[in-house]
């Protein structure tokens, strides 16, 4: 399988371990990724409320993907939402389409684009990918955190249930790890409140940690760099704001399945997560210690 690849800004920065683990896992799964040429920012959450600007910026990347003649894969949930929404508008909104075709001097024919998780669980299939799992991850007790834009709105993201998705849960279980029930799996981490009301963002993320701990998990698995920025990158700050130490490793799903595929910690850049993953890695293959 050969796919055009849009990493987006964070995967070249704060989410570099998602980029590295995506490439490592795709290589092991026989997916050839071709990074699209000279891609630009999708407008992220900062332009998401300025609909036409967000869609216009995103559309340029779809034009770039169109040139490759390949389907497009996007690991970031925000980029994936923005580029999908732009693709829909280019097809359904003639006045918007006219503006962007004029700006770029090209005709848009459309591109098939999907989130990386969708490609892994549906196009390849959880049952097929699990044949590549050579090492059981028993000892890891995860909760699957989907967040918002990976599954919502369902008119844009169509591959799983918008409120109770199971695809990531099933993928985690296929590695031999436990995946525990998590009622807040699609409740917002507050990422977009970080710059408008930080204490609310921290409070929403804190609720995720509280439930993850209450159900007895030893890590949270995500598929979005913004969720990861809050849960992993800001975890120390959130702990400090709430007078506690959270100490909860947060893995990208590619890092988790990469471990199952027997890929090295270096290839998966497990040392780049802000919260140490060392204890979690040690727990693999060990029986649960009663407290």
């Amino acid at each position, binding site marked *: 399988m050969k796919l055009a690849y849009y990493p987006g800004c964070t995967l070249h*920065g704060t989410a570099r371990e998602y980029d590295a683990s995506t490439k490592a896992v795709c290589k092991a799964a026989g997916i050839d990724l071709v990074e699209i040429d000279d891609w630009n920012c999708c407008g992220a959450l*900062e332009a998401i*409320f300025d609909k036409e*600007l967000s869609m216009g910026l995103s559309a340029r990347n779809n034009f770039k993907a169109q040139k490759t003649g390949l389907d497009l894969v996007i690991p970031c949930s925000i980029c994936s939402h923005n580029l999908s929404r732009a693709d829909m508008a280019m097809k359904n909104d003639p006045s918007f389409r006219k503006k962007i075709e004029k700006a770029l001097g090209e005709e848009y024919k459309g591109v098939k684009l999907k989130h990386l998780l969708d490609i892994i669980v549906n196009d390849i299939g959880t049952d097929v990918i699990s044949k590549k799992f050579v090492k059981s991850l028993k000892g890891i007790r995860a909760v699957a955190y989907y967040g*918002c834009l990976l599954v919502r709105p369902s008119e844009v993201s169509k591959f799983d249930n918008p409120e109770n998705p199971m695809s990531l849960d099933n993928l985690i279980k296929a590695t031999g790890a436990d995946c525990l029930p998590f009622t807040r799996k699609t409740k917002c981490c507050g*990422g977009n409140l970080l710059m408008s009301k930080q204490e*609310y963002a921290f409070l*929403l993320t804190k609720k995720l940690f509280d439930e993850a701990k209450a159900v007895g998990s030893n890590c949270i698995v995500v598929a979005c760099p913004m969720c990861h920025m809050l849960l992993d990158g800001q975890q120390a700050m959130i702990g400090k704001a709430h007078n506690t130490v959270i100490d909860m490793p947060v893995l990208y799903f590619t890092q988790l399945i990469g471990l199952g595929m027997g890929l090295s910690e270096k290839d998966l850049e497990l040392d780049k997560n*802000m919260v140490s993953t060392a204890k979690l890695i040690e727990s693999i293959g060990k029986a649960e210690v009663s407290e």
Partner: protein
Amino acid sequence: MIKSSELDPNFKYEISKEPGGENIKKCFNCTGCTVGCPVTEIDKSYNPRMILRKSLLGMRKEVLTDDSIWLCASCYICFERCPQDVKITEVVGAIRAIALREARAGNIKIKNTKPVFDNLFIDSVRSNGRWYEAGVSGTFMLKTKGVGGAIGYAPMGLALFKKGKLSILPHKIKGTDEIKRIFEEVSTK
């Protein structure tokens, strides 16, 4: 008390003309948006239904100057559940667009820091094609928290830098002229 003489009955039409605001008039006030809202869960005074209701009544200035419009987390729960397909998340975006224009014209003041960050971010994308994390975050901290406040974030910046996650300089794409043309096209009505 709401004075009918102070209402602007055109406000709902103004919103519905903005991209994303088209469906506001479909709202039949069922409260489904508010029941599922994660922000309402932690702050009972945050009420998306009330933002819509006030907008439909024409309480223009009150809505545009309400800090609530900057507290939507864009999680799309209400968008997903709305039985009338109001597309509430995008309606909030339409209201924000009007508020930003009014603030630029000097007619209202926005206290929330979110637009400061968004504008810095969007400006960095306008000139580079990608967002310049170190520059945007640093400038935002200085502007909103002052030198002392910004220093508080230095350890986190340093930790990110040490892990190779933060670039000191911006990355500029080749097609910045195309980005400029997109900005120009979407700003025309």
